[in-house]
């Protein structure tokens, strides 16, 4: 009955780099750092009560995905009422780094609805097979494929709109 869980350290050593990549890609480096720490703390809170150790990676990324959902909800709320024109954003080091890479695409990824975003990031930036994409979102494999397709479609649309705008 008793389940043998590896030391939390071992679990995190194995997945920390991917977890960081997932969150930095999904919400940006700054908020990604916050989400990363929140994910680790939430995971540690729940860890000893896990009933099985079958898919610890999936479990960890499900928590991370929820942080992305919470983050999207929070920034959605923040973005709603704009009484004054928004301040000119301070170009930070992260934005500069984004410029050197494909900033346009990265911004479009971060604007996807959370499920599509997680699906696309897991699939292409982390190169994960569909069962793992599904585990991270907490959905079926079919739904994971659907989210990847929908995400790609939306990215194509958003990028085309920007170019022609």
């Amino acid at each position: 009955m008793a389940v043998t869980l590896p030391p939390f350290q071992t679990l995190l050593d194995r997945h920390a780099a991917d977890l960081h990549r997932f969150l930095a890609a999904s919400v940006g480096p700054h908020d990604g750092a916050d989400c990363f720490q929140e994910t680790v703390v939430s995971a540690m809170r729940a860890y000893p009560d896990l009933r099985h150790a079958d898919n610890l990676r999936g479990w960890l990324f499900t928590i991370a995905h929820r942080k992305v959902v919470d983050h999207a909800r929070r920034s959605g709320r923040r973005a709603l009422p704009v009484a004054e024109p928004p301040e000119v954003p301070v170009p930070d080091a992260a934005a500069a780094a984004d410029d050197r890479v494909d900033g346009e695409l990265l911004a479009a990824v971060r604007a996807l609805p959370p499920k599509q975003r997680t699906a696309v990031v897991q699939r292409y930036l982390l190169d994960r097979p569909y069962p793992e994409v599904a585990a991270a979102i907490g959905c079926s494999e079919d739904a994971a494929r659907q989210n990847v397709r929908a995400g790609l479609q939306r990215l194509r649309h958003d990028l085309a709109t920007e170019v022609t705008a």
Partner: protein
Amino acid sequence: MTTTHDPADELESRLRRLRTAVDAPVAPTGNGAAPDVVADLVAGAFARADADGLVDVAWAVEDSPIGPLTLAATPDGLVTIAFGPEDEVLDALAARVSPRVVHLPRRLDGVRRQLDEYFAGDRRDFDVVLDRRLSRGYRREVLEELSLVPFGQTVTYKDLADRTGHPGASRAVGTAMATNPIPVVVPCHRVLRTGGALGGYGGGLDAKVWLLRHEGALLG
């Protein structure tokens, strides 16, 4: 148009190219070394988890003249000092204490300072709260008795059997020594065979000899 790209593939390869872009540390450092962003985040997360009381076992590695030691503490005290490979130590702690085992050297600062002083010859006794949960029954009794043997002195397995009121239990004493979870601080290196032979040591006989010489209990 000279391109033969399928636009569908193009988006996918653009996405794949983002892969390492988000990993890169964003702030160049003066000395040219890339800061380990992930390691820093992990350390910060563990500190937050510790503040929330979520770290059941904190560990750190301490270099010593007898080789690297893996130290681990629970909120109740120092629970182990181990010579073996760190992975095995952590696995054992996860199985026997709690799977919430994380690298948190800060929680071991006091012990590490005392070990440094001991190895430098500036300390004879340890003032460390011990969590003895990894030993039970008679073994624990023997190890508690052993803790009373002072720096620079040695006893035999038989002495410890006698002192714990089980004169015939030398073998059980030997087992207690072999399974001592907190060597050095609980000084199983001070236990010799009757007649002066060294007996065994979990950290290897070289380590035992080093410790006994260091304490002036073994000449030559």
